[in-house]
Each structure stands twice: as C-alpha cells, then as structure tokens.
C-alpha cells in the first residue's frame, strides 16, 4: 500500500499570479502579498474567565491581550482582537499551534483552530488606502486607524479581520487582512479589480510580516 502525500495548498494558490497586475510602466501603487504558512487559533474566554485568561496570555506572550479593537505584537505571535473576551493568535512554526496553546489555556478558554479557515493578505503601497477605500467602509486615515488598530469588519459583503501592522522601513503603512478561505479567490479578484488602476505588485511569502 502506498503512502499518500498531503501537500498543503493555499486557497489563493490557483488565482494568485506573481508579478504586476493592471497599470504598468510606473512603480506599482499597491503591493499584495499572500502569507501562506501560519497558525491561527481562535481563543474565546470561558464564562467569567477573561481576567484569568488575560493573565495566562500575559505570561505566555509577555504582552497584554487585546481587550478592544487592536492587534498586539508579541515576540513570536500577533494577538488580534476578534470580539468581546476573545482574540486570535497568529503565529508560525507551531510555536502557538492548537497542541501547545490548548494546555496553556485549559479551563480558561475555548480554542478553535482557524489556520486553514482563513487566507492572509498583506496590503501596502502608496495607493493601499485608495484601493481599500473601494472595499471597506472603515476610515483608515493614519490618525484614526494607527499602527496596531484592528477591526472585525466586512469587505465586499464578506466577513474579514483587518489590522494595521508595523510600518515598512520606508514608512509606508501595512494592512493585514484575514478573509474566509472559501471566499478568498472571489475577494482576490475583487481586490485586483479595485487596485488595477494603481498597478499591483503581487507576491506570496511563507513568512509572517
């Protein structure tokens, strides 16, 4: 009997073509990078256990877990608010995957693995906000949506988590978008349409930004 290969395929693998989409001949106004390799765990406090969970999270991540619409950067993970008394843990290399996180929060939280339920897209570039203005009703002005701001929102009628990561070395803002995997290809095409007039530099990465 043969062994089977269980290669992993991102939900955007079929649609994503690296290179430039749309306007050419000038520096692309938007950069879209799919992050393909990550662990994502939904952590929801058990009833009345938020304070204890927050302490356990502080011990584990050495940062305070978000209790409002923010994304908090820890050494090897990002904690993203997803609703009252709940957050997402984004990490890689199994550091905070289900099997390690579950024992740490045992009795304090209910955990669901969402690593395969989302696609993760990083959006930057001089025209990133212009493109996002076509997709999102949120005010992404730097003073309103600063580094670390997060939102559980909808993009093109599709549920999404959007947060602002650390700026790039050149000062440009970075927006990270988690979208449902089965919607990802459809939303990807919408994003390409929205950004085509600015030129889009498309790539993918195995590394978290």
């Amino acid at each position, binding site marked *: 009997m*043969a062994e089977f290969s269980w290669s992993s395929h991102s*939900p955007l693998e079929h649609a994503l073509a690296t290179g430039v989409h749309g306007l050419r001949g000038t520096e692309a106004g938007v950069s879209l990078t799919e992050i393909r390799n990550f662990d994502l765990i939904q952590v929801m406090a058990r009833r009345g256990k938020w304070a204890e969970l927050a302490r356990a999270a502080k011990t584990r991540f050495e940062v305070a877990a978000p209790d409002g619409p923010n994304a908090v950067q820890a050494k090897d993970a990002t904690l993203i608010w997803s609703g009252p008394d709940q957050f997402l843990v984004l990490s890689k290399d199994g550091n905070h995957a289900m099997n390690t996180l579950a024992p740490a929060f045992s009795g304090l939280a209910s955990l669901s693995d969402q690593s395969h339920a989302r696609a993760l897209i990083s959006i930057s570039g001089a025209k990133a906000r*212009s493109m996002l203005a076509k997709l*999102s009703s949120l005010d992404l*002005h730097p003073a309103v949506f600063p580094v670390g701001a997060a939102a559980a929102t909808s993009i*093109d009628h599709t549920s999404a988590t959007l947060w602002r990561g650390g700026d790039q070395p050149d000062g440009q803002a970075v927006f990270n978008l988690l979208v*449902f995997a*089965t919607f990802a290809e459809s939303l990807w*095409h919408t994003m390409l349409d929205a950004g085509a007039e600015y030129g889009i530099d498309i790539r993918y990465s195995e590394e978290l930004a």
Partner: protein
Amino acid sequence: MAGVQANRLANGGLIDRSVSLNFRFDGKSFSGFQGDTLASALVANGVKLVGRSFKYHRPRGILTAGSEEPNALVELRNGARREPNTKATTAELYEGLEAASQNRWPSLRHDFMSVNQLFAPIFVAGFYYKTFMWPAKFWEAIYEPAIRRAAGLGRAAGVADPDHYDKAWAHCDVLIAGSGPAGLAAALAAGRSGARVILCEEDFALGGRLLSDGGTIDGMPAAEWISRTLAELAALPDVRLMTRTTLFGVYDGGTYGAIERVNDHLPSPPEHQVRQRLWRIVAKRCVVAAGAIERPIVFAGNDTPGVMMASAMRTYVARYAATPAKRVALFTNNEDGWRTVETALGAGLQIAAVVDARPDVSAAHRSLASKGGFPVLNGSVSAVDGGKDGARKISVSLTGGARAEVEADGLAVSGGWNPAVALTSYHRGRPKWQDDIAAFVPDGAPPGMVAAGAANGAFGLGACLGQGFAAGAQAARDAGRSGKAGSAPVAEDGAFSLTPLWHVAGKGKAFVDQQHDVTASDIELAQREGFESVEHLKRYTTLGMATDQGKGSNVAGLAIMAAVSGKSIPETGTTIYRPPYVPVAIGAFAGHHRDKNFHATRLTPSHHWAAEQGAIFVDTGLWKRAQWYPRAGEKDWLESVTREVKAVRSGVGFCDVSTLGKIDVHGPDAGAFLDRVYINTFSNLAVGKARYGLMLREDGMVYDDGTTSRLAEDHYFLTTTTAKAGPVMQHLEFCRQVLFPELDVQLTSVSDQWAQFSIAGPMTRDLLRELVDPAEDLSNEGFPFMGAREVALRGGIKARLFRISFSGEMAFEISVPARHGDALVRNLTQAGAPFGVTPYGTEALGVMRIEKGHVAGPELSGTTTAADLGLGKMMSTKKDFIGRVMAGREALVAADRQVVVGIKPTDKASRLRSGAHIIPKGETPGPGNDQGYVTSICFSPTLDQWIGLGLVERGRERIGEIVHAHDPLRGEEYDVELCNPVFYDPEGGRQRG
C-alpha cells in the same frame, strides 16, 4: 466647417487656445478648445438650434450653462457607449467627441413631428389621461407605445455598458458642496483649523460663479484670489478638492452620496480606469455652498433659440470667450442682470436694449446706456419672434401700455436667483420664503449640515465669502478641530434690488418647464380643474419631473399657481425634494458588482480538482458546487447522474460536502445549550458519537437539521444545511448571548477550516482501509454506525471520520484541514481506483436522499412542523427547547395537516414533476380540493422510474391510495400513488452493515 469658430472672441476666456479639439454634432464637423463644454463650443461655432422639445417638437437652443439645462440634451458617444440625455452644458469637449440631437426625425432642422405644434391647443395638461381612456385595453397595446415614440428623449445604447464603475468610501470632518466664493472660503477656514476637508465641485474647474463674473477679493482680481487660495489649500495635508464630482444626496448618520465623473471627459476611460465612481462620504459636518440658479421669466416665445439666462450669457462670453449673439437685449427684474450688459459691452457686442421691469433704473445704468447707445425700456418682454434660426424680434409691453419692438438675435433673461435648496431639504425639509430676494431659502437642514452663501440666500460676493468662511470655521470647531482659521476674505456686496416678476401675459406659448413642455396656461388649466396642491400640480402637468427636476422652472411654476389661485407663494408651498440632485447612472450604483462579480462566490476545497474533471457547477447560494461529472459519450445530465448513483449503490463514490455549515460548540454547558436549541437531547450523547438533530424556530416550525458529534466532554461539532449555515450561526449566537447568557458555552464557525467529503457505497471500507492508518479499526464493532472520532491517515495527517449516511448506503464522512482538501480528493481517487471509485455531484446526492426519503430544502420550507416531516417522535417531552410551546398550537398539530409522503406515477414510464398539485382522484382540480403538492422529484435508477416526495393532507394515513397530479403550469395531468417515503432499503440494513 472645422476650424472656423466664428463666434469666438479673439482674446480672453478660460480656454486653452493651444489645444484645438475637433468634434462632430449631428454629423457636422466643428472645432473648439480645451476648456470648452460641448455647449460653449457649439456657441463658439454659431450653432443655435440644438434640440427639439419633448411634446411639441419645438426648436430649442441652449438656455443655461450648467446642470440645470432643460433643452440642450444630446446623445453623446456612439454604439455601446451611447449616452442619451447628456447635457451639452456640462459635457466637456474632447478630441473626436460625437454628439447627436434628440427627439427629431428625419433631422433637427426638418422635424416631421413638429406638426404636433399644429395640434398644440389640444396637447394640454392631462391630455393623455383625458383622451386615451377607452377602450382600456388599448392603453398598453396601442396608446402608450405610440405616445412614447412621439414624445421622448434620447435612445439608450441597448447593449451592455463596456465601461467599469466603482464605489468608494471617504471620511472627513467637513464636507463642502461647491467651490464658489462661499465654498472656497469654507474650505480655507476649515482647512486652516486643521479639519479633514473634502470639497466636491460639479464643474471641472474650481471657482463657481467667480469664473464667469470675476470681482475683487482682498484687493486682487478673483482669478488671482482663486489661484492663491487653491495653492494654500493644496499645501494643507488633509484637504481634498474633488472636481467633476456632484454631491447628490444626504443619507442617515452623516453619509452623503456623490458621483465623480472620473473619465467622462475622455472618449473612453484609459485602460484599468473606471468611467465614474460613486462615493459614499461620511462627514461630521457639511457646508452646502452649492450656489443659486438663475430663474426665468415666463413669456410667449421664451423658448426660442437665442433666449438665454443672463448669467449663462455672461458665462459663455467671459469664461469661454464665445458669443451667443451679435445683438443682445436684456430682460431683467433685478440689478444682477445688468452685469450681462457690462460683460457684453466689454466683449464688443451690440446691446439692442435693456428691458427692466422695475420702475426705477439707477443713474449709473442710465449713463452706461447712453454711453453704449442703447435704450432702457421700462416694461416687460411680451413675445419673442423667431424660429429654428433663432430670435429675430422682441416685443415689449412698456409700463403705461405702449408697445415697442426691438431687433435682436439674443435675449438675456434674469428673473432673479433661486438658492440651491435641494441638499438642505432632502430629509423632508421645507425651505422658507425670503421676501427681499423673492426666493425660497433653507429652513434648517439635516443634522450636521448648514448652508452658506448664495445657497443660503446671500447673493453679494462679500456676504458669500463671509458666510462661507464662518460656516467652515464653525464646522471645523464642531468636528473638534481647534486650529486658527485666520481672517475671512473680504469683498464688496453688489446691489440686488429685485422686483418679483414671474409671468408676462401675451399671445403664444409661454414655457415654464421647457424640458417637459409645460406652459403657463397648463398651470392655469390645472388650477381650474382642481389640481391646485403643488404635489397634484406637479403630477398633472409633469412640471419639474424631467431630467433637470425643475431646477430652473419649479419656483416660477409655483408663483403662477399662487397668482391664479389667489394665494401667496409661501402658502402655495414647494413639492418634496428627493435625491439624486443630478441623474446618476445605474452602472455607478452597481459598481464592481456585475456579471461574474454580481456577488461574491465561495469555492469548495475540491473546486479546482472538480473543474479539471469537467464537472458541471451549480450555484447554491454563494457556492459553486459540482452538480455532476459528465463523461465522454453521455448524452445528457440524466445519464451521468444515473451512472453516478449506480456506482455508489454498487461500489463506492465520494462527494464534496464542505459546504455544510460547521460550528464548534465549546464549553462545560455545551450539551445543555444544544438541548435547548434542538428538539432532541444531546447532553446524553457519548463522546465519539454523532446524532441527527432538528431545530425549530420560535414559532414551532422546523428551522434546520444536521448531524452533531461529540468530540470531547466539552466540545461538540455541529453541522447545518448549506443554505442555513449563516442564519443558524446567527440564531445560535442570539440564543447564547441573549436567551441563555447564564450558560458557559462558546461558538465558533469552522465551516472554512474543514474540507469534508462523503464516501458512500458498499465498498467504502475497502477504500478507507487504503487511506487510513492500518492501526485504525474501521470494523462495524470498532467504528459503528453514528461513530465519530479522529483517525490517522497514511502519510502523516489526522482526519475526522464520521459514520453517517445521507445516501442510505454504508458511508463515512471524512474531514481534513481545508488546505489538505485538494490532496484528499486526489488521494481518494487514487485509493479508490481499485474499486472504481466515482465522484458524484449534488444531483446524485439529491437522487439518493429522495430514494432514502430524507427531507431537505424543499421540505424544510419554513411551513412544516417536525411531525409533518415524520420526525415528530424526536421532540423530547423531558425538556424545554426553542419552539416547543408554539409547536403545540392547534393548527400545527391538526390531524389534516399536509405531511411528507412518497409519490410515484401509476404509469412507470410517466415523468413526475415537482410543483404538481395533488387532487383526490376523480375530482375537478381547484383550490377547494387541493390537498398538497410534490416537493422533490428524481429519476430513481434503483427503482427505474420517477419518484418523489410530497406534502399531502393526511398523507401517512393514505399510503397506497391513487390520487391525481394536476400541473397547470406545464399542462400535465396524471395519476400517482401515495407510498412510503423511504423507497430504498426501508430497514436501513445497508447503512448499518
């Protein structure tokens, strides 16, 4: 003749004479300059006749220079981009522009339908209603099509729009409508205060009336002030000036609608760009500096080409250096009209006369007249003679009764100005009357909005600047910005001094609404016939209902109604103002959401594999699901589906069921929670087992069904139907947060986390033994029916395995994390190859569930109870659950309810169709003896005939009865037998074996 712009002044204007643009109007070639509108270019080329009127096909010329234009409507562009009813006055000229006049045949100069003018006496208000009443059935078939052919505007392209549109959001502290003196001053004050500002300007150039009327601001010419102001605004970090953008509506919560004509000024949008963009702007405050619209005076022949609003004439001469006439007369009732004389004299035009309706004319004007050598006549214009070649002679009724005649080819008219009160009135606001300007002004506004400048009834330049600046500064403060606004720009206020005059009696048609051909006598007739209320007047005469929405004409119409009904104008009142302020293309509202992007689509983890197999996909909600997998040589879907069903029933097949909703139910009270939302009990389900569950709505009707497994003491994995995945998640969250907050339970949608496949058929275990780690016990003892647990797969990953069956066969559902879904489907194919594994789609899935008598969407229709579905025994009597009490209502437990039953035609060769009504045999079909209907049908390869499920009155008591199927929709009648809904393996031995 291209190249000769006979009516272009040698100097001046805001046009770029270095860029000459060729264009065609009605097939004739002309040229204009960059910075022209189509209208100004036609003026420069001496074109006076630009259209035919709506009803009477009267020759019409250009009346205005803005978006209030009623006459100069053209079809712009060709083919798929043909755009009817485009205002020549706002269409920017571009190289190669093609435009055609509308509503004429065979040509603009020789319009056959102008015979309508001969019948004009009978084409009065309400003519159609009065004339085409009988016979009633002729209306749709004959009258309406004929009327629509004769009376009309431009022709739509008739094919799909090749351009793209999009929609975008913007946010600001202060939104400003208009870039005239008030708007620019508001932007300066708000911007300097540190506010985030968006200014929308309809025109392609910023400056509003300053571009045409000039003036002195802060001691410098207006043009210089504009360029300094724009430079200062450009240097502010958060001020955005949007030209070609009309603010068209205000909605709840400070949200505004605006349409940006991104590329209308080009023949077609550059690659990757949109034609227009719909903006939704969220603003803390809004300053409406939308200006005012000059209004007509109604007199006989006031629609003759060559008659033009006085301010429009100034615009053509001063801004576009184009002269609408050689010898101009002015008819005014206010000081502002006189500015046209100054502009015309400055451009070297002859002034034929000024007819001033006011008793007193200032000494300064009299001296201007004597210097210019033209008479000032105290009185009113009573008629204009002329035709398609323009005005020739103007008749004047002098105060005191004498008459005079003036030879002129152009007549500038000013009846005063109406503030643009639309935006401030959109939330059912009613403007108030202001006597000194004899006009309606805003009386309050939607929350956060304020009017300034001419839009607020302040017509002097100094007042506009002052009001705009103050409003901008206050708006910024209200939005929490505290920077220093500095000082307001300063200018003198000109005199306005108006004596109201609306209508001059005379012989011949005097038009109020030129676009809809509504005359002064139509309004008088409406009053005589009792349509005195302004809302009735509007609908009876169609006054103000054309594409210009009566911007120029409405107030004159109200004034005439007021006069004939003996009321004041404020007593007569205004009609309700509704957005949009300008027509907005449906394409802009649709934006990206057209064709394949009409809505978002969801793809299953095996989608691309299925596409490789040539699967036919069906839209199921947002999902694309494989419906069947055709093979070479199969003649139709039925042959493919039949093959798939037979393959499953005799061997093994698989189907992607990832579309089912999947919810993690966590927490110590998870079981108790499920007991309350399902009719049956889950708290006693053993870990490692699955159970079918049914949930009701509050009203006792069945809501949804699915299988829920207990994976750990405090973890259930709940599945829903594909259709109800979202609604059930919402329902459960509502139950958790609102109804049962005392329960310690957490819910997470994991629908997208898992790729899930059903593997079914007698050889299912053979296939799974290839795929699953040999250490896993898949025997009936080791993995019994309704078992659920994690197993290891060969090659290293874990999967969840559920022994559940929808097909009635020995079956498992297997799920793996979704990114392994593509690998799983390929591995299933490989592992199953020795057993002839066959992928099957939703059709075969449906056939097998009907054969097995399982209910699905057509039976879970929101009108059925658990008992109707034959699942009444599942309703626990030992606990409470949602819907329990309401399910006990009399009508819901009545003995004669329509319940699920099997149905098969008595003639085995006959086809059954869903939707057919069930009637007792021998009775005449009708509502009185309708006993139910066929809900689901299929061709059953197993029984070799068409079978179905239906909801039939007392169906379960009537098994074996022959009834009649009546299908008037398809014209079919046949006898059917009511039977047990479980057609296949009623003992269930196959799925348990």
